[in-house]
């Protein structure tokens, strides 16, 4: 077990390094450099000599590999550099933006899991066909509705028509509710979709018949036997969904005018503030890696067939090892396709930020 965790942590470090390196290469391959941008596109009052001096000061005139190694070393020391636009340390900017984002993301995750699982369980549990149909219609709707529009509607209904929650700003827990619901919508829909499908498949398994044959009640069969078996694919997806939540904050925070990582990302991408963007990428990667590590540690508790150290008995061990890879990717596959709509957190963050800026500020 300890070996397994250490191995996974090592793997996590590898993932972080790869994410940082790729983002470094991509950002430096972009046309235009930060210095030109800093000076302004049509800057006539700055001479090329001055620009070069600025580049030298920022270390941008050195070979790419030197810049890369230099930055990597700095990152290892916990120094993410300084923002080109504001001149403040990136760690400070992210440190300020992180808490409010964590607050809505965590709240949104709770809402998504509770509501998503609730819909999935209810849709399978009810004996009324029409109710099941209505409930199963909700997840596709939730994925299809644009988050910014849903956020605006929530503000319209619950801040202006029936003023319960504040429309914008950060005024404690009460102002978390609407953004968290907005953020939870696509995530919760994904969980509901996946879990209801997985639950209905599980309910057709022969061991569920065994439970019925024991005289078990509907609640016992659904919640006591089927749910735990059906939860694994949904759990796997929940790990991937953290990325979805982070990219969702770009829209949500913009719509609700809240401070946070999403706003920082949108701003930094727009202004090509490379050190800040890289800092955000690193933070997103860390969140992603941690979430998936947590999922992998929880999964064996749900399913004893997932082993963390290897097989137990000589002969059956081989069989279990053979059976397991077949089962795990199968449960992970819907995850991959579900997140296909919003691919990697970083990619969609940049893509969505463009949309966010064209949508403009909320009413």
């Amino acid at each position, binding site marked *: 077990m300890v070996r397994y965790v250490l191995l996974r942590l090592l793997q996590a470090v590898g993932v972080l390094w790869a994410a940082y390196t790729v983002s470094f290469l991509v950002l430096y391959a972009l046309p235009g450099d930060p210095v030109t941008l800093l000076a302004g596109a049509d800057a006539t009052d700055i001479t090329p000599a001055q620009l070069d001096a600025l580049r030298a000061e920022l270390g941008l005139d050195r070979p790419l590999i030197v810049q890369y190694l230099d930055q990597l070393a700095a990152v290892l020391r916990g120094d993410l550099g300084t923002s080109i636009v504001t001149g403040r340390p990136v760690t400070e900017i992210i440190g300020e933006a992180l808490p409010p984002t964590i607050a809505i993301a965590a709240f949104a995750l709770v809402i998504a899991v509770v509501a998503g699982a609730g819909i999935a369980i209810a849709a399978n549990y009810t004996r009324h066909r029409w109710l099941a149909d209505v409930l199963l219609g909700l997840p596709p709707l939730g994925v299809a509705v644009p988050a910014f529009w849903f956020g605006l509607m929530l503000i319209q209904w619950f801040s202006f028509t029936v003023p319960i929650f504040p429309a914008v700003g950060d005024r404690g827990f009460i102002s978390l509710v609407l953004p968290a619901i907005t953020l939870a919508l696509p995530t919760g829909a994904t969980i509901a979709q996946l879990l209801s499908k997985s639950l209905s498949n599980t309910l057709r398994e022969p061991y569920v018949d065994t439970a019925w044959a024991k005289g078990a009640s509907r609640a016992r069969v659904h919640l006591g036997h089927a749910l735990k078996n059906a939860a694994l694919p949904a759990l796997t997806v929940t790990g991937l969904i953290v990325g979805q939540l982070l990219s969702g904050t770009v829209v949500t925070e913009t719509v609700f005018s809240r401070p946070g990582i999403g706003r920082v990302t949108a701003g930094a991408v727009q202004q090509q503030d490379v050190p800040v963007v890289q800092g955000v990428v690193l933070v997103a990667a860390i969140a992603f890696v941690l979430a998936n590590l947590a999922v992998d540690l929880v999964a064996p508790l749900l399913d004893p067939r997932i082993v963390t150290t290897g*097989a137990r008995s000589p002969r059956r061990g081989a069989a279990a090892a053979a059976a397991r890879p077949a089962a795990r990717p199968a449960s992970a596959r819907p995850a991959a396709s579900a997140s296909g709509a919003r691919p990697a957190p970083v990619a969609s963050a940049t893509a969505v930020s463009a949309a966010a800026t064209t949508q403009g500020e909320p009413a």
Partner: protein
Amino acid sequence: MSAENDRTPDDRTPLLEITNLAVSYRTAGGTIAAVRDASLTVHAGETVAIVGESGSGKSTTAHAVVQLLPSTASIAGGTVRFEGRDVTKISRVELRGLRGRAIGFVPQDPTVSLNPVQRIGRQVAEVLEIHGLADRRTAAARAIDALAEAGLPDPARQAQQYPHELSGGMRQRVLIAIALIARPALVIADEPTSALDVTVQRQILDRIDQLKQELGTAVLLITHDLGVAADRADRIVVMSQGEVVEQGTPAEVLGSPSHPYTRALIAAAPSLDLDAPFAEPVRVTDATGSADASGETDAAGQALAAAFGPLVVAHDLVKEFPVPRAAGGGVHRAVDGVSFAIPRGRTLALVGESGSGKSTTARLVLRLAEPTSGSVEFDGVDLTSLGSGAVRRFRRRAQLVHQNPYASLNPRLPIGRIVSDPLEAFGVGTRAERRRRVEELLDVVALPAGTIDRKPAELSGGQRQRVAIARALALAPDLVVLDEPVSALDVSIQDQILTLLTEIQGEFGVSYLFISHDLAVVRRIAHDVIVLRDGHVVEAGETSRLFRDPREAYTQELLDAIPGRAARA
């Protein structure tokens, strides 16, 4: 709950009385009547067997008793009275009170019928908790007793384990414990052993018999094997196409069957037919080339063998698998010093239980796995020395038919594509030529020509296995490895497939390596038999000799496990 063991109960009300039961399924193409007019009774303490092939409605009838039918099924008519109450009319709550407590249920496939994420003990104890028969702690203790009763070797330990840590036979014992822990008056056993090895099947059925005697429980046994029914039942009910066609004591049904379907079923059951002539014996040679002394002579086979030598000679095969460090490390010897020869145009059977190394041996012969030591010669060439190009050429000459025809055919491809796949892989012929070859092959395996454009899902299990055989024959191989080719099929279908295989061998002179756990099946097709246990050869010899005069105790044990003793005696 009556627990009397009275064998003359005809004057009392039956425990279970099914009258004119009709069950239909809604499908996309309209309703299908699965059971049309089934009537039968089970008295307290009695064992009644329902016998029939897939689609006969036997399982549907059994499931109707506990109302465990799929949601597409509905009871179209008739009554199912248990202890006087019609279970098709009672409320859900009343039904829950019957299930598990008054009627126990042993399902068909133990490998998928236990909750994989719950400990064994919990799953057994749950029955008592559901029905309020014991508190949590007492229930846990009684679960261990029930597991011991069902014949688990170390019940306290197994109660703490998860299903995947137990073998199939042990899991079926767990399911028996679940069915019996609440001391029901009736146990429904739906093909309880068809997924298990014959030796395990015998142990499981013996255990059910014994518990039935001790507890006075009545048993409704569903089986496709008349041999099993004859051994275990007080009365046999034969079902065909949703109707009961015959019922009576085993002596009546087997001794003087009145319905043609029953007669066909008896003729098809390999276990009931141990007096039929053996496959023609051939001279068997061991790896050193010396002839088996007891072998009768077969001119043609000997001439072939003398002229060309055997097709396959396996010499001292060993296959070891590394054992994961967490499980103690070291190696596991799956195959340990196995030698044999497969003569041209003949059949050699590898017989053994799960884990005996028979499938691994077959993989070594096909070079799907590398032996740790030893060699396999195919047509005089050492396979272990072949390069990848030569191995590919060898693949043309040796083909494989899998056990499960439901899993071995790509469900998305039409049958024509499936059968021509090997031809395409080796670029044989033009498209039109391949199509002609496929038509020819389908004809060989006696499938209608229209099959070529159908999908696997439209075919029955037996038809699918014919497709798999046609695919294996596509490249006109010299050797076909048949890995339990009939284990997943009904007895009557088994008979047809075995006959087909024999005909194909007669016509094309192909050699078979036939893998099976069932000596009754082996008897029908193999010329020579090798009995394997834990990777070792226990006994080898001609099939007829092995059956008449088994030299090893283990072989005798396997012979004894063949069901149908009662009928043969």
